[in-house]
């Protein structure tokens, strides 16, 4: 089968689960889900949004970071049923049309990744960070991005990318950070 084919299959075990409505990247999903399905597994295995990564499944690496109502969280520790009614933005939802989000652009330009596996989490985290507005210096970016591990060690380039995106935003050259779910 082709790599791009996607399937929507909900679990048999979910048939008598909880009813949950989630808006993911602007698309509304009415689902029935067993309560033990995490938001991360829902995204990856059921909605086939595999941009969000499973790096540890325990909140210890940040690869699964998504925006929940605009706020960055570890999707591996969220039970999907508990987020009924929420708007979720994943890395797939950041670009508008063919146009990349400024953070995505900056990541490419600054070579802010190598293997790319922590990257969606870093990017969603960076979008959340910018929106939170508590980081103004490289030092603050480093501290407030520390929930996203990068085993390839691209940290310095990630910080440079975030500074670049923040700078562009401050200068008004780019539209405000999107993908905040609001």
């Amino acid at each position, binding site marked *: *089968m082709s*790599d791009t084919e*996607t*399937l929507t299959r909900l*679990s*048999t*075990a979910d048939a008598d689960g909880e009813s949950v409505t989630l808006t993911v990247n602007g698309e509304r999903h009415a689902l029935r889900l067993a309560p*033990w*399905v995490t938001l991360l*597994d829902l995204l*990856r*295995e059921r909605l086939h949004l*595999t*941009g*969000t*990564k*499973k*790096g*540890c*499944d*325990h909140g*210890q*690496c940040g*690869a699964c970071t998504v925006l929940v109502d605009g706020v960055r969280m570890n999707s591996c520790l969220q039970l999907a049923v508990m987020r009924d009614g929420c708007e979720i933005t*994943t*890395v*797939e939802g*950041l*670009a508008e049309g063919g146009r*990349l989000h400024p953070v*995505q652009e900056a990541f*490419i*330009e600054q*070579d802010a*990744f*190598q*293997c*790319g*596996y*922590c*990257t*969606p989490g870093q*990017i969603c985290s960076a979008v959340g960070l910018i929106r939170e507005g508590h980081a103004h210096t*490289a030092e603050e*970016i*480093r*501290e407030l*991005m*520390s929930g996203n*591990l*990068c*085993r*390839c*060690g*691209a*940290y*310095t*380039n*990630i*910080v440079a990318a975030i500074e670049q995106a923040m700078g562009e935003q401050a200068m008004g050259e780019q539209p405000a950070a999107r993908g905040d779910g609001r």
Partner: protein
Amino acid sequence: MGHIGTPTSRVDGRAKVTGTARYAAEYVAPDLAYGVVVSSPVARGKIRAIDASAALAVPGVVQVFTHENRPSLAWFSRSWQDEVAPPGSPFRPLYDKEIHYSGQPVALVVAEEFEAARHAATLLRIEYETLPHATDLGAAREEAYEPRKKRSGIPPPAKPRGDAQAGYEAGAVKLEAEYRHGFEHHNPMEMHAATVVWEGDGRITVYDKTQGSQNCQSYIHNVFGIPSDQVRVVNAYVGGAFGSGLRPHYQLFLAVMAATQLERSVRVVLTRQQMFTFTHRPDTIQKMALAADADGKLTAFRHEAVQNTSRFEDYQEAVVNWAGLLYKCDNTLFDYRLAQLDLPTPGDMRAPGAATGLIGIECAMDELAYAAKLDPLEFRLRNYSEIDQDNNRKYTSKALREAYHIGAERFGWGRRSMAPGSMREGGELIGWGMATGVWEAMMMKTAANAVLHADGRVEVACATSDIGTGTYTILAQIAAEALGVDLARVTVRIGDSDLPKSPVSGGSWTAASAGAAVDAACQALRKSLFKLARGMDDSPLANASLDRVVFDGGAIRLADDEARAVALTDVLTAHHLSLVEEEGAASPSMISSMRYSRYTHSAVFAEVRVDAQLKVVRVTRIVNAVAAGRILNPKTARSQILGGVVMGMGMALYEETMPDHRFGRFMNHNLAEYHVAAHADVQGIDVIFVDEPDEEVSPLGVKGLGEIGIVGTPAAIANAIFHATGKRVRELPITIDKLLD
């Protein structure tokens, strides 16, 4: 033209920042089942009984695989040995009731849903008979032995030169010390996973987290007896590996087994905890004995190492093979031994052997420099070796001296005061340390092909992998350069066992090997295209020869009159061809290998700041000057070094997997307690590439960069900590407890 050597953003960047790059666990298939692995809680023993009834009763559970119901598998050890296996008999998952190590996979629970399999896995009841085990290298070193069978590709320690004992005794200053670092785990961000797609006609497509698709393909063939042409292994994107994906691991075995038994597609993803159960950088003890005369010239260099291996394979690294390359000394002794522990076989982890060995060598050199009252850099320069003394060979190139000078200049080394604890700012002690790095510049036989399509698209293909190293990008640059087309016109296909033959991606050899193969294929394609162009009616190239034309701007042009040109697309149109395809291959030159030694070098300078009372260590600056031949892409090349330095920081300060020897089990098997460097730990890394033209080392003059960045970094940091605090910590990682008074 002008692609090679130009800082170029990754061609796979867009896929990676938008989440469309697919990794092993991200392929979909109809009717996909999920396998969850159950791991042994005991370190050694036998499975006495398995009760799977409760697990099988969970709705959605399809099957529970154990050694009791596994299919028939290969018998001979050789069948289980992959292309990079060390000597011995590889671990066989679910083979029998024997337990060889804690965390060994003992069952695979397969269910319709991941969650059902995860739940059912907790319900499996397994009874074990336990046997005595050992996981302590400190105790096992007494029984260490010289590995009888040498691991292919790992040179045994060099023969002794002169008389190390006499040289030591004759020395004016001496150092005898033991260094150690604990177990480390690779912990790539992507957990090992395999998705096996059952194609319905007996064929399987395997998406595995591996550094070598063809290595996995032949493993599957050899172990399961499935004909190779019915197995395709794909690893288009690999979420980091650092050596953890060199050999086929049990996620692959289990997923293939389940898929072929159930005749349906199966996905197996390991947990982070299970990432600590199949390979590791071995625990290593290094004994150093060095002496120098009154002029600071080495009179003896003795380097002995003992590392752990498993009970079933003699995994080996080149730990003691580096001093003879770096430092002039007439009296040397090198010794390397293994001790068996009840653990999985260790494996190559970023710069295996060198990352370790250069801790012993470079910390000892620093200590001896202090004993000789010489600046550590000056001490190294006085002992600089222009040749590989162990083999009495010249180097293809060795710009290490330049690296020392340029690195020192950038760092400001000249402003360093020698005495430990003599540089302070407020309550912080400042330490400046340096170390040398060295790694092999290897090349492996590799094949590739190159295609020009009628629409002007170029496609190059090779079964090699991009494990984050930038392979996609450099191969695109090489093809664009050779054929004179825009980078955007080039498609690179790698990470697929169907493509031309390539070894695993490791050893820092991929750029030199796959790069040369792609270049060879493109050169062959140039030749064919030129021939076709010359044969066109009224061709402006009719009287030209290949050495008188250039490929540029999508056309073949006369070198001295570039207006006279034939567009590449016109060549195909004129001959009614939809494509032109050529193959190429590259191999290391045997003659050159006998004549020259080939290595990458680096000079690493580190600044640490240590709180005088609390001993909190901050690495505030690193300058890494690297001499690595030709740099294909300064942008991705720099990232390779950054990554190596960051992992080196981890090795120096944070990383250690701690076993409880009573259980024979690693206790901090998670990313909260196995500490890798985080954002807050990393700043101020300056990477310099020293000019080092080298036509001999490989066809493209490339030496490779994947590993050199980590080598030397731990020692530079350890030496900086000594300079700051006056305390020599010889056991890495240097955690706060080791620095407190």
